[in-house]
């Protein structure tokens, strides 16, 4: 007979408010095997844990059931407590009577009844619990950072400075990301490039950092400490080792009509190009779609003028395989497309987005910093900013969340105009102005009070081109008056959104994302930079809209987490791994096809059965790879594969305890 101890937690009023904890304890105290039962205010507190430890020793308990909060919260706590009292930690079972009972039921009677059922199930399972021992694995001392914007660069620099190797994989030909496109940063109005460029150079020069630009993640396998990643290097058609970055090829390329991605389409670029002057690495790439050599077979000028013979038209895609201990995702964000916002006449050259504005006002941009209308090169006298274009918009075309950065960058844009050309009239239409950040509200007030920017609460209904002008129709919602402004330029603060390939990436990495495809953290308060997959961390706007200071702070936090992981000698494996009964296994391979972690292989083996030796194919689990997801156990028809700690038998016992 087992000696089971049951501990029912009140969780203050969190549980006791809706579940009659004493009744729960009373209901289970005479179940077979239960020799000790108590209820207590806070089982997770030191006193609570001591109750548990003392009871184990005094009553000689061999199984523990704690009816409390979710095992995600405190399973580790109670396991540790049990272990310190000499009990194998896997003999502890948790009944979740908080999230599953008190938090979802209003009626105390119903909540209590369910809590009793769940506790009984946990006791039934605990009766069958067995001691489990976990193995260990080595940690590969190298980190992967996916995304080479400010988040990725900061993370990589921090990890590299701690003495570990880091690889950055960036999709575009240069690191730098969105921050490289920005002119000035709020709330200090620093020159964005001036603070970013040195970091880009540091990253490139750091002995511990390897850059894979113009590269993508092909596949990710393995597990924390040992991720096997295949990186696809897209062909640049330029040999990175030979190219000196002299730029002669770019100068001489006759195909000049490509739209510059970096300049947001406001300028053209050649077929062989670097995205911007300070690109890192400074090696150009050839845009195959646009290159005359690829299109017609004639040209090859770049190759002819290249002094080091770096141009390689026959370069092919290359796959690099590498093992990493930790992965940090820093893939950033995009702005939404405005195709569905016809009322703003977005296709009009003088209706631009905030990011286009950044380029128009940047000294290195297409107008050399002269702030002019793209349509005719004249200086605008009246500029209207529209905030929340697609943000906080629950309709199909928009995003329900606040994009977080627009209020601040719009104030910044308005000030930048007023600084250069004080006679310009500037209007900002807003729903609310949200400025919760250090020195943010002061910044916004400066725009209004010192610079005389006209802030009008209300949404713009329509922008109608009329001759040279853009007629902006709106309602001042505070006074209710309809307004019409004959603007020269309209700047739309379009909503931020997750990268289009976020879903594909999340699947490769086995992590989760929210409704808007931003990656989800393991816990918003307790684990804000971790994902639910061990060893994979998040930095920057791939997790949700963020400004630069927040991004950099999170990047360093993610780096710290990665460093902690990399500094470990070895990792303890999950003890709840699956296990094959080789006599029953028929070698059908169903489990191995199902396993998301490639933990199962089929092997020819000698099986001893009733004194006979039978040679047959059977499944074998690699315990270091198995994550205990249980997928295989339900795909095995004869039930030959079973998850330790969650065996079919244990689960049947739980079902019986609830149903019978």
């Amino acid at each position, binding site marked *: 007979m087992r000696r089971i101890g049951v501990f029912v937690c009140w969780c203050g009023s969190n549980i006791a408010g809706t579940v009659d904890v004493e009744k729960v304890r009373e209901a289970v105290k005479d179940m077979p095997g239960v020799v000790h039962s108590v209820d207590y205010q806070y089982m997770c507190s030191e006193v609570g844990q001591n109750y548990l430890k003392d009871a184990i020793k005094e009553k000689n308990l061999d199984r523990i059931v704690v009816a409390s909060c979710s095992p995600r919260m405190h399973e580790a706590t109670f396991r540790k407590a049990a272990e310190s009292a000499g009990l194998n930690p896997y003999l502890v079972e948790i009944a979740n009577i908080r999230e599953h009972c008190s938090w979802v039921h209003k009626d105390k009677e119903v909540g209590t009844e369910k809590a009793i059922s769940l506790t009984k199930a946990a006791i039934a399972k605990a009766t069958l619990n067995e001691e489990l021992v976990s193995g260990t694995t080595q940690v590969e001392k190298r980190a992967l950072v996916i995304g080479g914007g400010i988040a990725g660069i900061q993370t990589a620099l921090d990890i590299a400075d701690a003495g570990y190797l880091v690889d950055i994989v960036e999709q575009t030909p240069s690191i730098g990301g969105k921050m490289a496109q920005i002119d000035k940063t709020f709330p200090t109005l620093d020159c964005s490039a001036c603070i970013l460029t040195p970091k880009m150079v540091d990253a490139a020069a750091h002995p511990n950092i390897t850059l894979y630009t113009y590269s993508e993640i092909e596949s990710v396998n393995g597990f924390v400490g040992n991720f096997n990643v295949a990186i696809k290097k897209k062909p640049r058609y330029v040999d990175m080792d030979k190219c000196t970055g002299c730029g002669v090829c770019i100068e001489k390329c006759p195909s000049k009509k490509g739209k510059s991605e970096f300049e947001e389409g406001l300028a053209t670029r050649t077929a062989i190009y670097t995205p911007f002057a300070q690109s890192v690495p400074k090696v150009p790439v050839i845009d195959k779609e646009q290159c005359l050599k690829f299109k017609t077979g004639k040209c090859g000028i770049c190759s002819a003028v290249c002094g080091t013979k770096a141009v390689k038209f026959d370069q092919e895609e290359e796959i690099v395989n590498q093992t990493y201990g930790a992965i940090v995702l820093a893939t950033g964000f995009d702005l939404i497309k405005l195709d569905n916002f016809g009322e703003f006449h977005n296709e009009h050259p003088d209706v631009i987005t905030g990011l286009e504005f950044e380029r128009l006002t940047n000294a290195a941009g297409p107008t050399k910093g002269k702030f002019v209308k793209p349509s005719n090169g004249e200086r605008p006298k009246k500029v209207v900013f529209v905030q929340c274009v697609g943000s906080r918009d629950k309709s199909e075309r928009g995003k329900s969340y606040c994009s977080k950065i627009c209020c601040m960058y719009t104030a910044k844009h308005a000030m930048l105009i007023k600084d250069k050309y004080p006679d310009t009239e500037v209007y900002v239409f807003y729903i609310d102005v949200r400025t919760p950040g250090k020195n943010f509200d002061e910044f916004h007030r400066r725009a209004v009070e010192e610079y005389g920017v006209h802030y009008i609460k209300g949404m713009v209904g329509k922008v109608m081109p009329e001759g040279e002008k853009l007629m902006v129709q709106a309602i001042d919602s505070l006074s209710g008056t309809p307004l019409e402004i004959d603007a020269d330029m309209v700047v739309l603060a379009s909503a931020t959104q997750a990268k289009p390939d976020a879903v594909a990436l999340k699947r490769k990495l086995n992590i989760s994302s929210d409704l808007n495809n931003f990656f989800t953290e393991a816990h918003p308060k307790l684990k804000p930079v971790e994902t639910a997959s061990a060893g994979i961390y998040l930095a920057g706007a791939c997790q949700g809209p963020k400004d630069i200071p927040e991004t950099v702070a999170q990047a360093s936090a993610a780096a710290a987490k990665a460093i902690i992981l990399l500094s470990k000698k070895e990792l303890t494996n999950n003890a709840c791994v699956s296990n094959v009964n080789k006599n029953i296994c028929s070698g059908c391979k169903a489990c191995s*096809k199902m396993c998301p972690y490639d933990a199962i292989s089929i092997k020819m083996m000698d099986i001893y059965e009733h004194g006979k030796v039978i040679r047959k194919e059977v499944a074998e689990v690699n315990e270091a790879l198995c994550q205990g997801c249980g997928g295989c156990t339900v795909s095995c*028809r004869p039930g030959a594969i079973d998850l330790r700690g969650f065996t079919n038998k244990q689960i049947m016992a739980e079902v019986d305890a609830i149903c019978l």
Partner: protein
Amino acid sequence: MGKIEMILNAKEDFKLGKIQMILGWKKEDESIESIPAFIESVEELEELIYDEYCVNNLSKYLIEEAKNGKKVGIFLKKCDALGMEQMIKDNRILSENIVPYQVECSGMKDFQTGEIFKKCQKCLDESQDKYAEVKEIENMTHDERYDYWMGELSKCIRCNACRNICPACNCETCVFEKKDEDILGKANNESETGFYQIIRAYHVAGRCSDCGECERICPVGIPLGKINKKIIKDIEELYGKEDDDTLSSFNLEDDDTFTEKKGGK
């Protein structure tokens, strides 16, 4: 190729030593019923027959006979061949150990009534909507459907015939035979019989070749084929026809946009 030639071919291969056994059909005594024949010697070769009563699907015997590298020749009708393919996919037999002789079939007859089996009629008449019966059931209300199936399934005596004849049910040890897990008891109660039926249906889901043998063999006449067909139809609609491992594979590209449907009672 005609049936006579196939038999001649098999005999020739056997005499030449290309195969060590033939799985075919023969008659016993005076009965017109055709039963499985396991030919292992030249003398027995003459017993081989093929007529309109050879309804048995022989493929399942391959698991036992083709073990240890023995080369086995087997006669297969169109529907039987699918069963063999499934067992190859399930890694239960190795195709290199098997020499199949596919025979033509124009429908098999019940030796007791002389009528062509229902499953064969359906197979021969391509103009029939193969999902007609499924649609009938789908059109019932939830409660009607529940009553219909409870009525049918409660007849089950758990003789295991449907499982034993099924080429998709090919595990080394059936899950129902696992003694230590108490999945099923011996007593015949509704809940456990329902459990048996659900597990049987889901264990062949995505793998059933629709040979109809389970339904033919059931001594109490439960329309098991309708359950299998419903699952076949659902898989076709949700995943498309082509995918082999639909229900037992992990695929990063899978989406999870299934509509929620509610059952009756």
